[in-house]
């Protein structure tokens, strides 16, 4: 443990309540006063725990590296803090400011305790800055990670919502695809289609790609995979909703889909009904049909 660390540790231990009071004052002044009483109590509680953890970390660990086990509880505290702030929708600047604003009372304290020795003071401040910067950056990283998790989860939910499997008739399923087909989405589409084939005992699945903006080799590959998997389960697939533009693209790319395709869902349904030996009759003209 270095001399600098000893000095800062001694200062924190001696002046813990004072540091906390000054820090909280600074936080309130810095535009946080309008945050409401509930957040203020949260903040003061977190500030108290932060100083406590800082004291322990400084006593046991190194200033240069906060990824060691000595800083584990500090990291936990900061993770909690940024997680709850990210969930509340507080901006990243405000979240980081919480850590960075601790510099003000700490530097002030250092200045008062080392009068006259500018060289020592500068070195102490440099040490403290490095530590607090690391802690602040760690907080931002956690904040970012929480937000990314949130986005990922929403994406997942959107995926599940956007791939419905519809029962059109006894033994006929429809899968209207909307949006681009990537491998993650194909996986979900495939799984939900196969599950429905089992649960409904369907023999025919109509895959409608009216809502798929472009079909390239990769999308075609994914379609083929889905169709092959359905075939292995014992269900035939009909591809429908191929727009003229896409038909041209498929030919130009030289793709071989090897599947029955129909221009519209209606045509596909007609074929599916025929395959399952069913007909739809027009009741308005029974005489004409019988004649």
């Amino acid at each position, binding site marked *: 443990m270095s001399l600098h660390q000893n000095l800062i540790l001694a200062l924190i231990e001696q002046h813990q309540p004072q540091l906390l009071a000054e820090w909280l004052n600074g936080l309130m002044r810095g535009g946080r006063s309008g945050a409401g009483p509930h957040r203020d109590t949260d903040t003061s509680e977190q500030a108290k725990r932060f100083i406590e953890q800082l004291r322990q970390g400084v006593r046991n660990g190194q200033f240069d590296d906060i990824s060691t086990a000595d800083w584990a509880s500090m990291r936990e505290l900061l993770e909690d803090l940024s997680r709850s702030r990210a969930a509340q929708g507080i901006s990243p600047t405000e979240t980081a400011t919480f850590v960075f604003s601790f510099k003000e009372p700490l530097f002030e304290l250092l200045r008062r305790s080392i009068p006259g020795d500018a060289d020592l003071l500068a070195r102490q401040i440099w040490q403290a800055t490095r530590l607090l910067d690391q802690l602040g950056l760690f907080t931002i990283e956690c904040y970012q990670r929480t937000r990314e998790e949130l986005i990922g989860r929403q994406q997942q939910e959107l995926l599940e919502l956007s791939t419905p499997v519809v029962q059109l008739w006894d033994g006929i399923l429809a899968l209207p695809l909307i949006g681009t087909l990537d491998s993650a989405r194909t996986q979900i589409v*495939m*799984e939900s289609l196969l599950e429905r084939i089992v649960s409904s005992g*369907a023999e025919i699945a109509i895959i409608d790609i009216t809502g798929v903006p472009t079909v390239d080799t990769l999308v075609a590959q994914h379609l083929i995979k889905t169709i092959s*998997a359905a075939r*292995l389960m*014992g269900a035939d697939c009909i591809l429908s909703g191929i727009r003229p533009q896409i038909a041209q693209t498929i030919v130009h790319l030289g793709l071989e889909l090897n599947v029955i395709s129909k221009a519209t869902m209606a045509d596909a349904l007609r074929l599916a009904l025929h395959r399952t030996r069913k007909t739809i009759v027009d009741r308005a003209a029974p005489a004409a049909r019988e004649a």
Partner: protein
Amino acid sequence: MGEIPILKIRDCLLVSIQVDMHDRLAMALQDDLTQRIVEDRARGVMIDISALEIVDSFIGRMLNNIAAMSRVLDAVTVVVGMRPAVAITLVELGLTLTGVRTALNVDKGLEMIRGIIDRGEREDDRRDR
């Protein structure tokens, strides 16, 4: 090491694979099955794999082989009851079993075999006329 039972339902043979397949068991099954197709003059073979949670490339090839052997002996092969997870795995492995017919369950498989045999006989009749 037990052997896989082969059940006869009218002119179809039903094989239900309930245990993990390994090389020797697969060879024995191919032997038994071809033997039985000839002895019972079966027209259809149904392989039920609904109990299999893992189907690897080896079993995939075995299914293909059985279908090809049955075809030579003039019997139709239908693989029934594949689980969704197994189907996805096979597709990812690039094994789409193009030579094998599939059906959702034993009921539908039986219906499919009936349909194919009937269609074949009708075509023969037409040719005779």
